[in-house]
């Protein structure tokens, strides 16, 4: 049975476990119907031209993890940020782990979607925001909606500036030979509020994991969102991350995506600007090798005047790895004075790696500033000789130039422990110990 068929036929069993007399369940059933029509995307779909799900879809994934595995903090401690006080929302094989988590209801709600979907105190927020921003033509988002049950629920009310960042960790313990996970997250940041979130997916064994995640984020007027995605999973894990950010006027939403691990990683990052004077910022560093694939598909919908968007993605590819960058910017007719900037720079360290980079600008307003740039090259050989002539070995010199290449993306990381973690991962990925802090 194909994975699509398996999902559809599992829906009845899924329904036994949840309250089906809710408005949310109507959305689920509708989404399932749409998914049945569309199926998983194939390379024939324009948006999936360079990324094939074939090898993932032929695996026999368990859709509902059976056993609740318990993790001891000391065994997974390394995956949490060091020296930083954080709220924590931790899932193990798709189940919320209350022992590893540190949630809050103290003037904010930092908890889980299963609670938000079932308790009446949250129903107002749920009916206002849940499943209102996703692309209804995207089958992966649809199948996530169909099985939406558990994930992150964050609600930061008006004027609240959250002092501690929120860490979201999804662990997979390998309790199934192959497991599919579908976290569904809802994050609402009200007017003048501020929040920082760090999201990590981590498999603890070599068993296959396929995560199809949907995150809806609503950033209110003059609110700030700072979101970090650390994608450094094992090579048998694949991730499809569908993130939808809706912004009100004067708000700022930054998403940093750091992609180093995983077999296949697809980031569908969508921004919708619903007011004026909005700043949308997307940055990314991708460093992959072997047969890894990382695909960044961004969309910015400039629907109101006087807004800006900034995109800066750097990629370094070796082995037989493949990178994809597709940056779509839509500027509506009324969105005058839009300032949209997009940059994608890539380094191919050998001739077996590939990058497909495609800007896609659809501009219907006439008084706008839109720029895009894409470069594909090798490490600067003159620079490499310069460093080596000073006694820095080739491998370290290459790593240093890689750091330098990615540095302006790192510079905008506001949480020091996130920055040092990323640097550590990069050094590790490049197989060097630089012994200094850039």
């Amino acid at each position, binding site marked *: 049975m194909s994975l699509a068929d398996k999902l559809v036929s599992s829906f009845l069993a899924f329904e036994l476990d949840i309250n089906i007399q809710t408005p949310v369940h109507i959305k689920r059933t509708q989404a399932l119907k749409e998914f049945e029509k569309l199926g998983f995307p194939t390379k024939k779909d324009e948006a999936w031209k360079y990324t094939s799900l074939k090898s993932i879809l032929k695996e026999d994934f368990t859709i509902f993890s059976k056993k609740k595995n318990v993790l001891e903090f000391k065994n997974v401690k390394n995956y949490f940020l060091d020296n930083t006080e954080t709220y924590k929302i931790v899932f193990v094989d798709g189940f919320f782990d209350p022992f590893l988590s540190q949630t809050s209801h103290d003037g904010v709600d930092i908890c889980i979607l299963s609670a938000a979907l079932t308790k009446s105190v949250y129903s107002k927020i749920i009916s206002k925001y849940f499943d209102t921003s996703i692309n209804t033509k995207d089958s992966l988002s649809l199948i996530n909606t169909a099985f939406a049950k558990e994930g992150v629920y964050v609600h930061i009310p008006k004027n609240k500036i959250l002092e501690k960042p929120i860490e979201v960790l999804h662990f997979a313990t390998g309790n199934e030979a192959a497991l599919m996970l579908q976290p569904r997250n809802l994050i609402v940041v009200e007017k003048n509020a501020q929040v920082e979130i760090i999201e990590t997916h981590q498999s603890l064994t070599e068993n296959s994991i396929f995560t199809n995640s949907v995150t809806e984020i609503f950033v209110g007027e003059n609110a700030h969102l700072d979101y970090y995605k650390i994608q450094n999973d094992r090579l048998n894990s694949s991730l499809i991350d569908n993130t939808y950010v809706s912004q009100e006027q004067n708000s700022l939403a930054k998403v940093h995506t750091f992609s180093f691990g995983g077999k296949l990683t697809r980031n569908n990052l969508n921004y919708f600007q619903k007011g004026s004077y909005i700043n949308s910022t997307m940055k990314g560093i991708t460093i992959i090798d072997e047969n890894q694939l990382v695909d960044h598909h961004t969309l910015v919908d400039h629907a109101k005047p006087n807004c800006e968007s900034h995109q800066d993605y750097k990629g370094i590819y070796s082995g037989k790895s493949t990178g994809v960058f597709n940056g779509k910017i839509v500027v509506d007719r009324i969105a005058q004075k839009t300032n949209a900037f997009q940059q994608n720079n890539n380094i191919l360290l050998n001739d077996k790696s590939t990058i497909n980079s495609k800007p896609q600008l659809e501009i219907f307003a006439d008084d706008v500033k839109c720029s895009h740039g894409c470069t594909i090259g090798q490490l600067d050989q003159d620079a490499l*000789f310069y460093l*080596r*002539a*000073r006694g*820095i070995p080739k491998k370290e*010199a290459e790593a*240093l130039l890689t*750091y330098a290449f990615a540095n302006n993306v790192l510079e905008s990381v506001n949480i020091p422990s996130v920055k040092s973690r990323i640097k550590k991962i990069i050094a590790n990925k490049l197989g060097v110990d630089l012994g*200094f802090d850039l």
Partner: protein
Amino acid sequence: MLSIDNLHVSVEGKPILNGINLDVRAGEIHAIMGPNGSGKSTLSSVIAGNEDYEVTKGDIVYKNENIIELSPEERAHKGIFMSFQYPVEIPGITVTNFIKTAINSNLKARNENEMPANKMLKKIREKAELLEIDSKFLSRSLNEGFSGGEKKRNEIFQMAMLEPSLSILDETDSGLDIDALKIVANGVNKLKNKNNAVIVITHYQRLLDYIVPDYVHVLHQGKIVKSGDKELAHQLEEKGYDWIK
């Protein structure tokens, strides 16, 4: 210290050096002069180990070891330093981090411990002072947006930090005004002692008023066509290169 014997070098199949012989002993300063295109910069790049150049014949023996097969970093570890004619701009790496990494890489290659941070800092301050380098300059990205003079001063600063046995200064005077030239020359002279050697590669005699060579060699069409003492440099300044060819 350095003995070059019948060195032939090609780039992309085109011969550039056609049988260079040169002996440099510890404590000496040698100047290599010559018109543009005579092979001066090729010679310095080859000694430093640039892999773009192919040695087709001959040997480079440094401290009794043939170094032709060694990588640039291995040569650096053994104490060879080249001040670049065109130092590369590397945005994203500060001067300080670069020099720290270089020093510790060299120490590591010699199986020595890394330099403690306080000692490093002290040394950086001391050498920056020698070359009249502002401390703000050290936290800037390596060579990025530096003036010609700043780049060259930064090269000699690195030389001061690394304390090489053999320094090759490739056109270090180009792009320097007279004040900067004096600072750079003063730096080189202060670093000079009986255990190290310097090869100054230059088109003009001007620098040699400040860094006084023991020997002067004239390079023409990839060969040393004349050698002499510092008087030769003065003659070249007066008469140009034509009389030698």
